């Protein structure tokens, strides 16, 4: 800034290259953090393994584009119990979508192991939550899985309203569609490189959205 200049960008004493570079790097940090509405760079305590990251991003490349000013988020599941033997699990996600955004698209990506003995019915519930109290569950969706491999299961975005804590728990209940056979263990790969993840799309709320309309 040139003191007293009416047009700070119109010139002044040229900076030494090193000083200019240091200023540019400082500006870059400030510009990126402001652009992402962050006050400081995120401190990663549990970064996802690179292989998990690459797999998930590969899945997303074929997805639709994020709208202007919107966000697309991948959140990897944290396994909270070890009941994978019965193919029913509780998956926990830590979400930090901005308060100013609303969720309009949600899919749960699951990788079914080759040991799938037959068509599988998967019911997905939202677990717990502020108003519903601990241990309660809300039905979200039911999907039928007939082949091993990755499946993208659409969830109602209205059922995934943001919790203060940012923690979202999904309860999966599996049952085989055919016969009375017990469900084989380890149907869903809920750990390792093909852990489940949520794919979410948000966009800024419109001004006045959510405000009750007076009639």
């Amino acid at each position, binding site marked *: 800034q040139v003191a007293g200049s009416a047009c700070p960008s119109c010139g002044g004493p040229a900076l030494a290259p090193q000083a200019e570079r240091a200023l540019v*790097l400082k500006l870059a940090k400030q510009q990126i953090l402001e652009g992402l509405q962050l006050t400081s760079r*995120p401190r990663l305590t549990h970064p996802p393994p690179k292989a998990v990251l690459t797999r998930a991003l590969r899945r997303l490349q074929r997805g639709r584009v994020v709208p202007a000013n919107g966000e697309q988020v991948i959140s990897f599941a944290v396994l909270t119990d070890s009941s994978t033997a019965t193919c029913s699990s509780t998956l926990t996600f830590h979400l930090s979508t901005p308060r100013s955004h609303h969720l309009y698209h949600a899919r749960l990506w699951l990788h079914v192991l080759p040991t799938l003995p037959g068509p599988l019915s998967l019911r997905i519930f939202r677990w717990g939550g502020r108003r519903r109290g601990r241990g309660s569950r809300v039905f979200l969706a039911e999907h039928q899985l007939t082949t091993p491999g990755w499946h993208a299961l659409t969830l109602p975005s209205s059922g995934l309203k943001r919790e203060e804590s940012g923690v979202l728990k999904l309860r999966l209940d599996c049952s085989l569609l055919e016969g009375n056979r017990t469900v084989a263990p380890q149907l869903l790969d809920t750990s390792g490189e093909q852990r489940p993840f949520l794919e979410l799309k948000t966009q800024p709320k419109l001004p006045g959205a959510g405000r009750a309309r007076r009639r």
Partner: protein
Amino acid sequence: TPSCEPATPLCCRRDHYVDFQELGWRDWILQPEGYRLNYCSGQCPPHLAGSPGIAASFHSAVFSLLKANNPWPLGTSCCVPTARRPLSLLYLDRDGNVVKTDVPDMVVEACGCS
């Protein structure tokens, strides 16, 4: 808009490329590897005032109003960005989630005199 050359005193675009490695941010910003932090600087003599661009048209409108009321414009012509574009970022947030977003107006494409 000309890129700034040492001998160019006039309004120009000063190009800088910032590699996120330099900032020590490559661990949480996955893509891109860096971005162009350009900015505008240089002289804007009167005969360049209002040279083409988005900001110039806005300032021209203001200046024409001022002229209508004063014989002389109150301010000086400034070297400002006249075109910018968004920057797509893929990064990890504090929970280890991957976020893909476009940050608007991050890269200065062109400069002009307001």
